[in-house]
């Protein structure tokens, strides 16, 4: 009965307050949109790999240890591990897969570069239970050259999903499709379009090497060449199980290590052990070498949750401030209600219902806004979030909980504040808020400006760093360099291809290489002797041709660049970091032996200056550059262009030499910038949060100024009568709380500094924003708060004495 009354009063109150109420509701809805968006974001991040049945029992087995002078910390594992695991009692299922290289897949006249081609064990789909649209569910591979494709791939090549029995070609091997599964959900730590039977690898390797190599590849414990996943039986603890695995592994692994060490007469230690990562934890906090996708950083999630909670809190605070700003009217109303018989409980209920009605309105606006904005937000932030209020009870109740939380929180202060007052003082209008009340409100404003300051400074620092990594001198020139994917397609006629390209106007240099900045590099093991002792080092290697140096504009420190003409097939260029790591005192006189082959000795012909061949997340590591051996597969063609280049002409030359391979190209600068896409996305999100929190903080100022003016209206009117100027009164109003703005801004600088440092620690090269950025934003925030005061106070201080 009273509920109807409370709701009616609340709705009429909103109508009566007009713009003021709308401002209040809109402020609340902005907070709720942010809150909902963060909930979606966090839920998406936490939902990774939850689509697999029994995901709590599925683990990836990763490898850690020491190999010579190198630490191993890899998501990959050796092939024989799975064989051993399958024989253990606690294991229900073991599956390996190997991601294939970016290669052309063909069907009739359709040719596409595909980097989502994997090779999986026969029971791959037993463990990873994707739904099948076609074929037996789940498909069990029982022969080489069998293939499962996803729904999207089926449509891409055949325009339909009914494609079981069709054949696709890849690198001269025909694969028969035995099943079509649903697309891999976006929230999965690996992605694929094709899964072929792992046994096909035998054929692929035998095409390129002998059977001894194949056997070695399949049985070598030191070769981390696959990803191994297992499902434990129910009730088996993963830690205890992995202890058993490592003990059992030693029986098989140690003899091989001893053999290698004896063969190589190396005194280096080789120690590997395995550890299990629950599949659901991988996206969230695994950052090993060889990750299948870029994983999340927990700090972002913490930051988002922190921001969302704070934004929600500050919007609630604004609501409280705006609600209690019209104090005098409210006081008297409460007094009258008390005297006509309202109990305290009834008054509390009235305020809470009022807040809930506001909250409901804000939630409705917020949900509509989110629904409308989500496609843009997804596009802008590069996300794939879904929002469907009616998707399930969990969502419904989740939103209900948020609404109740916000409503009760926002309404609680006015409810308990007003209902506890004595009616005599309320109706007489003589009730005054004490100094504490002002201080509390001031501190609330301080906290709002603190959050706004924190966010704008952190967002600025992020953009500052992103700008730094984009514009800093990488040690090479990426501008005007075109990257053509899968350059291997022109391998057979590379020289002719290059020569013909160079005839096109605008082409300056053409080169081939295996890795680009940001790619994983080959790892080579080298033995170096300094006369006293022998050491083994792992070095990243990039195979290149001699024009690579010109295309990228690399610089020499000593010696010369690799050259075909000078017969450098056994030559090597090292960067300065490598010289330091290998401790080569006279590098040009040194020889590096390829580990495992004492007859293959490389001469250091030149030392190149360090350049960022990886992202700025890692320090410049040692690097070895070697000329591409004949017939070796390589990934990219690089074209250094002048200002204008007819890409159609380049494509024609490509088509002439590539035997139908698709012409896919990008600019090197874009690829390098793409290495920081995740951080750009986070910076965008933080910027939006910063803007909204600024809006909320300004709303807070407006609420506070409304309160101050309401509270001081008599004093202001008196000052008007006495001839005080409007500016003077406004300055006085501002000075009443300006100190809190300053306080919030200053205090927020410390956590902001800490957060920037924490965020920046993921970079090896970090350009910290200067102190002037802090000062700049502090001044801007103070200026904005003064403008908000000016606008809000203008009306207030213009009160004619007679109205007050």
């Amino acid at each position, binding site marked *: 009965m009273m509920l109807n*009354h409370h709701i009616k009063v609340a709705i009429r*109150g909103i109508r009566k307050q007009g713009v003021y109420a709308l401002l209040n509701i809109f402020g609340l809805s902005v907070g709720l949109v942010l809150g909902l968006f963060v909930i979606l974001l966090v839920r998406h991040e936490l939902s990774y790999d939850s689509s697999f049945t029994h995901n709590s029992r599925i683990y990836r087995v990763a490898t850690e240890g020491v190999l010579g002078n190198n630490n191993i910390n890899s998501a990959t594992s050796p092939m024989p591990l799975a064989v051993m695991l399958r024989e253990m009692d606690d294991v229900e299922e073991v599956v390996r897969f190997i991601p294939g290289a970016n290669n052309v897949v063909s069907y009739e006249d359709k040719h596409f570069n595909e980097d989502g081609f994997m090779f999986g064990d026969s029971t791959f789909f037993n463990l990873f239970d994707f739904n099948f649209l076609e074929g037996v569910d789940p498909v069990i591979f029982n022969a080489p050259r069998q293939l499962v494709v996803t729904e999207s791939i089926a449509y891409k090549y055949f325009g339909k999903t009914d494609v079981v029995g069709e054949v696709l070609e890849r690198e001269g091997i025909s694969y028969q499709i035995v099943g079509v599964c649903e697309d891999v959900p976006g929230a999965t730590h690996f992605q694929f379009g094709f899964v072929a039977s792992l046994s096909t690898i035998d054929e692929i390797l035998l095409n390129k090497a002998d059977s001894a190599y194949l056997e070695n590849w399949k049985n070598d414990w030191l070769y981390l060449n696959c990803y191994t996943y297992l499902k434990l039986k129910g009730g088996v603890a993963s830690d205890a199980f992995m202890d058993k695995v490592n003990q059992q592994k030693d029986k098989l692994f140690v003899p091989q290590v001893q053999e290698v060490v004896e063969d190589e007469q190396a005194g280096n230690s080789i120690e590997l052990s395995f550890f299990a990562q629950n599949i659901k934890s991988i996206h969230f906090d695994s950052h090993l070498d060889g990750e299948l996708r870029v994983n999340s950083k927990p700090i972002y999630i913490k930051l988002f949750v922190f921001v969302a909670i704070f934004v929600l809190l500050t919007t609630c605070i604004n609501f409280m401030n705006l609600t209690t700003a019209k104090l005098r009217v409210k006081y008297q109303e409460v*007094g009258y*209600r008390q005297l006509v*018989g309202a109990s*305290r409980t009834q008054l509390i209920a009235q305020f809470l219902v009022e807040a809930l009605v506001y909250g409901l309105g804000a939630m409705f606006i917020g949900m509509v806004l989110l629904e409308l904005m989500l496609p843009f937000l997804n596009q802008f932030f590069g996300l794939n979030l879904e929002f469907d209020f009616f998707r399930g009870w969990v969502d419904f109740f989740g939103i209900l909980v948020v609404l109740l939380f916000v409503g009760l929180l926002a309404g609680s202060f006015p409810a308990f504040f007003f209902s506890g007052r004595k009616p*005599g003082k309320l109706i007489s209008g003589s009730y005054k808020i004490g100094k504490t009340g002002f201080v509390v409100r001031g501190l609330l404003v301080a906290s709002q400006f603190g959050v706004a300051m924190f966010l704008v400074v952190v967002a600025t620092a992020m953009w500052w760093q992103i700008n730094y990594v984009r514009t800093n001198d990488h040690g090479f020139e990426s501008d005007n360099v075109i990257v053509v994917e899968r350059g291997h397609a022109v391998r057979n006629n590379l020289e002719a291809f290059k020569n013909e390209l160079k005839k096109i106007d605008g082409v300056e240099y053409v080169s081939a290489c295996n890795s680009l900045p940001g790619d994983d590099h080959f790892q080579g093991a080298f033995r170096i002797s300094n006369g006293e002792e022998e050491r083994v080092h792992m070095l990243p290697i990039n195979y290149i041709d001699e024009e690579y140096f010109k295309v990228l504009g690399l610089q020499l420190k000593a010696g010369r660049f690799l050259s075909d003409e000078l017969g450098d097939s056994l030559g090597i260029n090292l960067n300065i970091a490598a010289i330091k790591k290998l401790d080569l005192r006279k590098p040009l006189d040194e020889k590096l032996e390829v580990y495992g082959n004492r007859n293959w000795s490389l001469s250091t012909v030149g030392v190149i200056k360090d350049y960022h061949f990886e992202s700025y997340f890692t320090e410049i590591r040692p690097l070895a550059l070697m000329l591409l051996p004949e017939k070796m597969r390589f990934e990219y063609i690089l074209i250094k262009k002048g200002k204008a280049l007819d890409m159609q002409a380049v494509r024609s030359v490509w088509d002439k030499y590539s035997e139908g391979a698709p012409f896919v190209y990008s600019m090197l600068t874009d690829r390098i910038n793409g290495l920081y896409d995740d951080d750009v996305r986070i910076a965008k999100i933080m910027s939006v949060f910063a803007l909204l929190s600024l809006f909320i903080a300004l709303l807070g100022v407006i609420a506070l100024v409304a309160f101050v003016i309401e509270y001081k209206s008599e004093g202001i009117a008196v000052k008007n009568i006495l001839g005080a100027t409007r500016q003077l009164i406004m300055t006085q109003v501002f000075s009443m709380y300006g100190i809190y703005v300053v306080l919030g801004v200053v205090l927020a600088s410390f956590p902001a500094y800490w957060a920037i440092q924490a965020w920046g620690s993921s970079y090896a090269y970090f350009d910290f924003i200067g102190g002037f950025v802090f000062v700049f934003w502090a001044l801007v925030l103070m200026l904005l708060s003064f403008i908000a005061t000016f606008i809000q106070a203008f009306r207030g201080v213009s009160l004619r004495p007679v109205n007050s």
Partner: protein
Amino acid sequence: MIHARNLTKVLRDGSIESTILQNVNLDIEQGEYVVILGPSGSGKSTLINIIGLIEMPTSGELFFMGHEVSRLKDRQRSNLRRGGIGFIFQNFGLIDELNVYENIELPLKYLKYSKRERQDKVANILSKLQVSHLKHYFPKQLSALQKQLVGVGRAIITNPDLIVADEPTGNLTSACGNKIMEVLSSLNEEGFTIVMATHSALEADRGQRVIQLFDGHVVTENIKNRL
């Protein structure tokens, strides 16, 4: 019905003490129409607030309907007030968000009367005060007199033991004030006990008994109309 003995009210503001009421004694019987008369600052509003159980005396005793109430807790006084005392305010005290009907109905809602009872009672009051035609109007659409009539209606809707009116004509023209005075007189004739504070001697004449206050003391007590 109401008996006050040595009521004293002292207000403290820091180190300054002001005595608002001093040793006030009074007796009000059921069905009486008592006017508390005095200039601004005489303590009449404080006295009427104490009688209406809104404020507590600093010392002295107050009996309301046989209960000693001067030391009751807020909640206990509130319980006695609810339905037992009707208040009429100088500035009407209407709730802006509620229309005439709802304003008058409000005390019944708080007292959890059934909908049927509320409808009947509100209809009676609207009719008695001749404001039925205004029942859908909101306070801001009413004249000052109409507002106060609604205020009176709300005060009597629970058929209270006592009506407390603090300067009920303070915001009205003299003509409108007269109308309200007539309404109060007729309510008294119906049996309502009324205590009214005013600074107007003319209005005080409407009461059966006038208690004159000056600087917190009862200076005269006139019972001219008692007979």
